């Protein structure tokens, strides 16, 4: 059973987590979302072999837009407003990571794999979202198997303004900060940052640091209200790190991206927030230089 008894396991990073492989959006309007993320610098790279799924990329970041309406009955039909449907994590051993998560109480997502496609293991995350595990991201790409490259397109477009994944913002219900902190600690090894350590211009809630120290999760509870008004729990937005926020904002504005400029939330050196598109898609910029 214990095949890796001689391999030291990093207790602080039990899965060998190594950043985000891709973020997946679901929508019934993939072209509209494609246009939005193209203004942010992502370029279409490849199409899925059997489903209506597109891969976009810039630098080290991959975004998958999934418009495949599954035949399997779902709790939620695809909506026009795109939602963040999955985070794919790079780990040392995807199978081991998946089994470890199940052993600790994660819900397995049944695989729906066509012939000759990769079976990427996944578990249920917040709301209707999923968390995938992949371990082939260095010498071999998962996209080489399931996707067909779009001809004449540069498969590795450089990132605009040195953008990179910084984190994901998750909306949670009232009194759920402790619960979700424990979920990410137990299953992946995330740790909460002290309250005084925050990034960007939206410092609310609790920030969890990934054990690979390459990205963050921010948990945001609803404002206290006298009535029971539990908001839906979901992955709300992606945060992108940039070394120079003001330069990145200038560049993105030229490409048609609009930012929120209100007394409460506006562009600063520390960060910026794009205006919501398509019913809620927004990106946060955070001043951050990768190590």
């Amino acid at each position, binding site marked *: 059973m214990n095949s890796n008894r001689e391999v030291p396991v990093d207790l602080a990073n039990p899965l060998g987590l190594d950043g985000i492989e891709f973020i997946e959006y679901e929508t019934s309007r993939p072209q509209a979302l494609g246009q939005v993320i193209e203004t942010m610098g992502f370029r279409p790279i490849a199409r899925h072999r059997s489903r209506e799924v597109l891969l976009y990329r810039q630098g080290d970041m991959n975004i998958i837009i999934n418009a495949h309406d599954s035949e399997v009955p779902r709790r939620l039909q695809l909506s026009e407003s795109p939602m963040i449907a999955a985070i794919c994590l790079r780990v040392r051993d995807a199978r081991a990571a998946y089994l470890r998560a199940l052993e600790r*109480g994660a*819900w397995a997502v049944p695989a729906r794999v066509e012939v000759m496609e990769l079976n990427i293991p996944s578990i249920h*995350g917040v709301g209707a979202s999923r968390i995938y595990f992949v371990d082939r991201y260095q010498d071999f790409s998962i996209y080489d198997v399931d996707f067909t490259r779009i001809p004449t397109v540069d498969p590795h477009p450089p990132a605009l303004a040195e953008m990179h994944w910084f984190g994901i913002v998750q909306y949670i219900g*009232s009194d759920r900060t402790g619960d979700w902190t424990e*979920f990410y600690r137990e299953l992946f090894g995330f740790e909460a940052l002290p309250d005084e350590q925050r990034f960007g211009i939206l410092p609310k809630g609790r920030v969890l640091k990934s054990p690979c120290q390459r990205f963050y999760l921010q948990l945001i509870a609803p404002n206290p209200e006298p009535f029971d008004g539990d908001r839906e729990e979901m992955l709300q937005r992606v945060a992108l790190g940039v070394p120079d926020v003001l330069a990145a904002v200038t560049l993105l504005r030229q490409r048609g991206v609009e930012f929120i400029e209100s007394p409460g939330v506006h562009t600063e050196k520390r960060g910026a927030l794009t205006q919501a598109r398509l019913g809620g898609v927004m990106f946060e910029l955070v001043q951050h230089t990768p190590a």
Partner: protein
Amino acid sequence: MSHFSGNIADIGMDTISLSGTLPMKLHAVKEAGFSQIMLMARDLTGHAEGVTAAIKTVRASGLRVTGFQVLRDFEGLSGNLHDYKIDIAKSMLEMCAALGSKVLLVCSSTSIHASADRDLLAKDLRKLAMLALPLGIKVAYEGLSWGLHVNEFTHAWDVVCRADAPNLGLGFDSFHVFATKTSLDEIDTLDPDKIFLVQLADFMWQEIRSVEERITTARTFRVFPGEGVHSAQLAEVVTRLDRLGYRGDYSFEVFNDDYQQMPPATVAERAYRAALWLGENVLKRSVPIPGQIRLRARG
């Protein structure tokens, strides 16, 4: 409603006290003046039109679901038995979530196959809590007085502390406390924020001498608070919990064969009298102010 309304929004009935179909039970509880009800899995699975229709009926009733019961003989198993129980737990959790219930009740194991190692019990309950977590469900672990290794609330509390999961807490049932004669002083050692459900029942005799008698009494001869011979003790339990800072729900966990032979409306009225006794005589609450808003506890 024929009588005046008391300040009892946090007190509810349990379907196990009532005869009849699910819609009859919901109707009787609501008509008596309660705003919440504790449900058991069989209420859904035994519904004539199926589980989905049962869930719709509950949601349409306007009653809040106090909690969903009961996952039995879950913790301390290994191998295939453990895997089997995880599947059962998932099924219970899915029904619980579909009902909008925030609490799943788990009773301590009576299985001879279960381990006595409390760290192992804690590990399994922690896994259950993780399964419940994305669904927004809290797991309340109750020490059944005829549980094999965990049979007092103090044992259950020890396991909950060892498991140390934010959504795993204690289910406290007064019947079992009286049956095992656990000192009520032990209530003061609990963390009120980790008590996820309090179930109250009285019974008609002073002594329960054997485990068999515990089971028979628990399943057939419980009565509503204030109706039995343990009223003073029951009042002390509730007063202590209130003083400790418990602000969650109280549910009447009353199994009684006689009540099963009475019209649900009559039983629900008895329950309502018990609720008024608790709210006014024991907790000394004032009548509700019209339009009163119950504020959330600070999280």
